[in-house]
């Protein structure tokens, strides 16, 4: 598929956006029935939006994403268009408003093609937890695309759209990006508005882009980032300049090669990271081998903090105002029947975990303790960043795994996020960039992590790896 940069350039030069939309629709119709990437394709809306983009270009507007088809994870609110979070409890619900990130894409001339599949309420690492069936990995349909933003990653891998949006609470952008062989960015917490993003764990959730290349991902992030007064946790600054810094390289940069971000991964993954480290060294970076033991504590802290927040965020799905309602004898009975029928097993598991962690008598031992570990993680990163500019490690312990291989054991599934979770706890940015191939010739993701607001530097490093990968 043509890159977002090239599409925007030719549409700006007078080529019709309708052509781009039809190309995308054709790619979607070719494989969506097989792969289950999109839960909803907005053909009419996309065609209408293409006409509008053409008109705006004719009027002389400068649109950074003119005519670029984009896929939206189905936890982003879109006015009048079904938004389900891949849950039965929201089946048929059409939001009366649109998420800020989607508004910004529209303002930039991008064309939403529809809504992509995810693990229910973004809880999972394989899209197997979707109430509407799993998404298959376009590179090998017997394997998972990762999750929770599996649909948005697969949309890129299948060539359906050049860019897409996902959300990352514990790795939900980076992990599927790695498993699908695309670029994924988890931005600094607060860089991208959460208004209209259906919450999983509010203090960890962050929206970010997927793309087939670093430059398109950077451009998309530039469009969606920047202060939003509708989100109180939004950072005050305007969107950073990223694309302009993509050729900055890594010469003179100090890079931490972190033991805990590789340990436990398969040999093919570890080898890819080692190769990436050599590329950076060859390009003038100083490599500092380091150990940050606190990062190993992240997983357990995350599986208390995220479910605790989720147990509260998901309370509103009570059958009273919107979505599914199953009648009961009284209000409490109706609440219970609705939630029993509407939520899947993983969502119920996490609501119970989180409710327990916040309960009187257990709060200090679980949630309170997890917050302390979160502080430890933040401090450990800060200490590391006093010495190095950014860190490198694996995104996931393995390449894409077969369906059903981890569904019996929640812990095995949770361990898939062990390398990605620390960035969410710290609120720091991280990028997954495809580098090398592993088992069954499947792509491997290398992860670059930096301190808050270091996106420009991280993406420049990712560009170095992408250039090296292309040259091989």
């Amino acid at each position, binding site marked *: 598929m043509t890159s977002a940069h090239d599409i925007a350039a030719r549409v700006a030069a007078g080529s019709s956006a309708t052509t781009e939309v039809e190309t995308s629709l054709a790619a979607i119709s070719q494989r969506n029935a097989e792969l289950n990437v999109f839960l909803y394709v907005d053909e009419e809306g996309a065609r209408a939006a293409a006409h509008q983009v053409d008109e705006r270009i004719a009027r002389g507007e400068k649109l950074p994403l003119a005519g670029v088809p984009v896929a939206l994870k189905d936890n982003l609110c879109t006015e009048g268009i079904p938004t389900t979070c891949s849950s039965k409890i929201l089946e048929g619900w059409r939001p*009366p*408003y649109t998420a800020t990130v989607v508004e910004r894409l529209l303002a930039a001339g991008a064309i939403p093609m529809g809504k992509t599949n995810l693990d229910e309420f973004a809880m999972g690492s394989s899209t197997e937890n979707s109430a509407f069936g799993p998404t298959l990995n376009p590179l090998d349909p017997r394997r998972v695309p990762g999750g929770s933003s599996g649909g948005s990653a697969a949309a890129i891998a299948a060539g359906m759209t050049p860019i897409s949006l996902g959300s990352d609470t514990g790795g939900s952008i980076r992990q599927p990006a790695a498993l699908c062989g695309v670029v994924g960015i988890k931005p600094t917490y607060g860089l991208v508005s959460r*208004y209209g993003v259906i*919450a999983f764990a509010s*203090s960890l959730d962050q929206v970010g882009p997927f793309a087939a290349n670093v430059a398109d991902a950077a451009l998309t992030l530039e469009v969606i980032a920047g202060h939003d007064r509708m*989100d109180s946790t939004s950072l005050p600054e305007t969107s950073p300049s990223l694309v302009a810094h993509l050729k900055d390289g890594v010469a003179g940069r100090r890079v931490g090669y972190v033991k805990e971000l590789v340990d436990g991964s398969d040999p093919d993954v570890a080898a890819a990271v080692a190769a990436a480290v050599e590329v950076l060294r060859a390009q003038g970076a100083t490599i500092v081998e380091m150990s940050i033991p606190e990062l190993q504590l992240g997983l357990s802290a995350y599986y208390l903090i995220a479910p605790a927040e989720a147990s509260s965020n998901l309370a509103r799905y009570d059958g*009273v105002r919107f979505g599914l309602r199953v009648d009961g004898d*009284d209000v409490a009975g109706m*609440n219970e029947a609705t939630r029993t029928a509407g939520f899947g097993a993983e969502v119920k598991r996490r609501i119970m975990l989180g409710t327990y962690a*916040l309960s009187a008598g257990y709060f200090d031992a679980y949630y309170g303790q997890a917050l302390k570990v979160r502080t430890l993680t933040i401090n450990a990163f800060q200490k590391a960043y006093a010495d190095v500019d950014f860190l490198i490690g694996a995104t996931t312990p393995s390449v894409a795994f077969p369906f059903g291989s981890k569904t019996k054991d929640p812990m095995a599934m949770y361990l898939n996020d062990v390398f990605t979770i620390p960035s969410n706890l710290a609120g720091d940015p991280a990028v997954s960039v495809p580098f090398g191939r592993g088992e069954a010739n499947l792509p491997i993701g290398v992860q670059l992590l930096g301190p808050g607001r270091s996106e420009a530097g991280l993406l420049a490093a990712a560009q170095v790896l992408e250039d090296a990968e292309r040259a091989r």
Partner: protein
Amino acid sequence: MSLPDGWEMVIGLEVHTELQTKTKLFCGCANAFGADANSQVCPVCLGLPGSLPVLNEQAVELAMAIGFALHCSVAPSTFHRKNYFYPDMPKDYQISQYDLPINSNGYLDLPDGSRVTIERAHLEEDTGKSTHLGGSGRIHGADRSLVDYNRSGVPLVEIVSGPDMRSAAQARAYAAELRGILIATGASDGRLEEGSMRFDANVSVRRPGAPLGTRCEIKNLNSLRSLQRAIDYEAARHVAILEDGGKIRQETRHWSEDLGETSTMRTKEEADDYRYFLEPDLVELSPSIEWQDRVRAALPPMPAERRATLLTIVSEPTSAQRDAVGVIVDLQLDRFVLDAVAQGADAALAIARTSNEIAAGIDSLANLSLDSFVTTLQLEASGSLSATQAKTVLAEVLATGGDPVAIAAARGFEQLASDTLSDLVASLVEAHPDEWHRFREGDEKLAQFFIGQVMKATKGQANGKAVIAELNARR
């Protein structure tokens, strides 16, 4: 009502007041009472998926104003989520301040000189309003429930007192004084009947000097009268149980105004576990010192200070005048009285007429201009109108907005010119020498005889006090 000898009441109050902001606490919806059901709502106050709260600056400002008026310290504060399921609470959690409130450690001095400590005054959001149809009218057993979310997200400040009050009357006085302060700060309209203020009372009893007894909380009292009655009832209930050798069970109770009694809502064991945790969608609230100073400097005088100011216009206030001044400040009429006195009205008359006649006609206050008020009082003070006539004129000005002089004339209250009265009295004294003699010797009853004669001669147009003054002048 007081408890039997040897028992003491201990009362603490939690007062919820709706803030008079233009918009709700976390969204741009209008904060307005009485609109069509579910017409003042948006994704945020409906708790729709993906919506986020944004704190209202005006609400913070009013909360700080309340804090400063109650001598609290303002400190950096945070918001928590209080989690429980209820249909009129759209997110199934309430955003409320918890361990770090915006205001803490203040006090309120009552008119009787007692001091009640204020533990905290914190911000939180209101819920929607449920109406249960059929069955008992409460949620259990109702056929259907209707929910209006217009009130959902309306800003509230909860003011928590220490357990410092020792009688229901004192608790009532505290609530009344607090109401005056909330109105003075502009934070609340103080309309109890619209639910702008709601009271929860924590009541226990003990032997004087003993440790605090087990308390019960009476929820959602919405008038000063209910507050006082419910506390008296509850304390008496405790004493009866304890004197019978029983124990008080800590619980939340409901007050029935019709039955005049409290009943169990839920026991301590049934209490929800609210699973409070820091609201991740909001950041710490740290009003700058400059902002705090601006709010503090803009605070108008509070009721206690206004009562004191008003009392300075009478040299030796009687207890009736002290009460009257309380009524006047309560009705926000103190400025009016001070202005009237500044324009030449008699202070004692202004206080008396305002706390009685104007208070009675307060709903049509708009009809009474300051000039009309001053003119009426001056006519009364000069003896041109009798007290009764002045009250009648005042009532009519309030009712119709007419001119007091014209009303007096139309009612035939045309007073006698003072030299006319003087001539008349002179001729009556001449005509009734015996009576005059007895009056001069000190028989005050004879004054009434002369007044009667004057009234007869003037067909009731004269002022009794003016007649007495005229007689005394001749003694």
